[in-house]
């Protein structure tokens, strides 16, 4: 272990906190705890403050990055919690395996994927990441090591999947992979003019495609409200001979501009263009641009300027989804704030059982907002009114501002969860949603 004074940020670069850090290197080492509360920190891809610990210490897990076991015939992989999904893909894809569930960036750690119970484009068929977990080891500050899985220490499993790193340190994780024939994805694009068409497309495509996501134009209002692009994909079957993919080099946003480059003008311009950009209806694409469209623009979060940004991701139950989404989109369009890439997806009925897991049946909407200060907070609170009234929830992994009252309403099992929190662990997020 080594101590550092560096202050990791979360992906949204808000809030800014003071905390110390401790680099972990051996999964077999006990947790060093002192007077300060600790919190595991993976690769800093959660947006708000679930990965921050103001006044405390972060346990940096990227040093726990060893593979422990891989069975290439059964597709079972066990690795330390700090391994990145990108490192797993580099190992398994050439051997004909793929992640069973992947979020929209591959630069997250395995432990972070479990602790936030992340989801992907195949939620309607596969559920969330926690459902793919066969086993993990939970290390508590008192030195206890618990093996947890769907059939073993189930209560600890349910608390830790989606448990935001608060139940202890996840030392390693074992997951079941899925077979693929090649690294290619068959993709289909469709435009939809409004939410009604979006739902009709879902009914048609969800049975045929495992991967579905939509981009929605959140700057559109009035007659064009709810227009967007529907994207469906599946792993290409054996025998597909695809052209050599073009060499894609990563670009890096080299500095943080003082004010956000994402503003009313650029959002309107981009969204209008993006909607009308011609695309082939059907095609083949390598898996990387399909699953990780933003991973090639490294440090894109800098585009939102020095004050950072918020992401708002909510889920609305099926029965109220149409009306609530229309109301949310109308409120965003009226505010003139909003983002380039707003994402819409219908979740399936499957659940990992995590006490604080976010995915649940309904439609989820995710958008970015540059931090413009009080006007942004006010807008997000107005969105929370709609989400709450519709019986929905907001995703903690992306949140930096929801009220404690809202959190406890969205996640009524928080009081059961609280019994499993390690006495030496805490986070800025948890203290925030427990106090106000």
């Amino acid at each position, binding site marked *: *272990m*080594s*101590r*550092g*004074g*560096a202050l990791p940020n979360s992906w949204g670069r808000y809030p800014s906190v003071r905390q110390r850090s401790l*680099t972990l*290197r*051996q*999964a*077999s080492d006990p947790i060093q705890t002192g007077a300060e509360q600790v919190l595991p920190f993976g690769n800093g891809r959660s947006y708000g403050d679930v990965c921050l610990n103001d006044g405390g210490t972060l346990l940096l897990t990227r040093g726990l990055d*060893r*593979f*422990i*076991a*891989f069975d290439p015939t059964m597709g079972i992989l066990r690795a330390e919690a700090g391994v990145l999904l990108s490192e797993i893909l580099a*190992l398994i894809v050439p051997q004909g395996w793929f992640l069973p569930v992947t979020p929209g960036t591959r630069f997250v750690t395995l432990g972070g994927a479990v602790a936030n119970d992340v989801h992907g484009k195949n939620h309607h068929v596969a559920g969330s990441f926690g459902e793919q977990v066969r086993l993990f080891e939970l290390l508590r500050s008192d030195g206890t090591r618990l093996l947890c899985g769907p059939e073993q220490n189930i209560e600890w499993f349910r608390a830790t999947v989606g448990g935001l790193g608060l139940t202890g340190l996840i030392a390693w994780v074992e997951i079941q992979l899925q077979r693929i024939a090649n690294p290619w994805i068959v993709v289909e694009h469709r435009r939809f003019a409004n939410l009604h068409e979006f739902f009709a497309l879902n009914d048609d495509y969800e049975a045929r495609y495992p991967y579905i996501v939509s981009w929605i134009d959140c700057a559109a209002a009035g007659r064009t409200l709810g227009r967007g692009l529907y994207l469906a994909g599946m792993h290409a079957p054996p025998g597909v001979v695809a052209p050599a993919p073009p060499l894609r080099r990563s670009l890096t946003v080299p500095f943080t501009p003082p004010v956000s480059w994402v503003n009313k003008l650029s959002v309107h311009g981009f969204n209008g263009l993006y909607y009308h950009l011609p695309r082939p209806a059907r095609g083949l694409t390598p898996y990387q641009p399909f699953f990780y469209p933003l991973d090639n623009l490294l440090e894109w979060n800098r585009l939102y300027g020095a004050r950072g940004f918020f992401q708002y991701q909510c889920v609305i139950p099926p029965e109220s989804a149409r009306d609530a989404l229309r109301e949310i989109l109308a409120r965003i369009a009226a505010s003139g704030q909003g983002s380039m890439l707003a994402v819409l997806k219908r979740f399936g009925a499957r659940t990992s059982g995590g006490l604080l897991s976010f995915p649940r049946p309904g439609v989820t909407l995710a958008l970015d907002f540059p931090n413009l200060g009080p006007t942004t907070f006010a807008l997000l609170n107005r969105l929370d009114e709609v989400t709450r009234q519709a019986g929905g929830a907001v995703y903690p992994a992306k949140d930096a501002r929801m009220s404690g009252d809202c959190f406890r309403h969205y996640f009524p099992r928080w009081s059961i969860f609280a019994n499993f929190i390690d006495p030496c662990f805490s986070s800025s997020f948890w203290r925030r949603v427990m106090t106000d």
Partner: protein
Amino acid sequence: MRNILIVGATSAIAEAAARRFAASGARFYLVGRNAEKLAAITRDLEIRSGQPVHGESLDLDLLDQHPALLERVEQALGGIDIALIAHGMLPDQEACQRSVAMTLAAIHTNALSAISLATLLANAFEARGRGALVVIGSVAGDRGRRSNYVYGAAKGMVGLFLQGLRNRLSGKDIQIITVKPGFVDTPMTATFEKKGLLWAQPDQIAKGIVAAVEHRRDVVYLPWFWRWIMLVILHIPERVFKNLKTIVINLGLQGGLLLY
């Protein structure tokens, strides 16, 4: 598929280098003192390389064990293409000043043990007609300083020894590479405050090690800018240098003050 011996395989730099070697196909023999850490790294490299990984835990201070160790390596791998000597320890300078035994122990581990292995490996390479020996030295070996001259003296001895070895074997298909890292964020430097631009990650050093083998380099400073920093430091007259408590290198960026 290259046969690679790594001595001090549990060091952060060695582990990062092994992963990079594994990516282009390698068969490993790993030697380290801590059996538990060695086992974790062995499993990881087996998965990454898709090959069985050989190894053993051994206290490398036991110099008389070195010949037998190399025999076991030869048996397991059948000839070594690359040997990386990466073991070492950072002694407590002030404690060494009070204890001859501690000073000599630090020199034993950091210098004598490396020299013993380098001698045996160089002879094996000479007999075989080829091979690459990579030894991790340090910028601290370039000039004696009050804050860590025991460590520096040992690393300096290794550097001078390798220089001679390189001259002796010149003209043959044998590489003798001295790697001189600057400040690296590893468990060995756990007690330092790691602020500033001069601190490198182990993988940056590993990348430089792999490149040094590919490009047949003799002496490499890692990261590259240490060559120029050390050039300046080596040219400060001793009567000035001995009075400098700290040489402050102000890189300006990030407020990157670093006490050398």
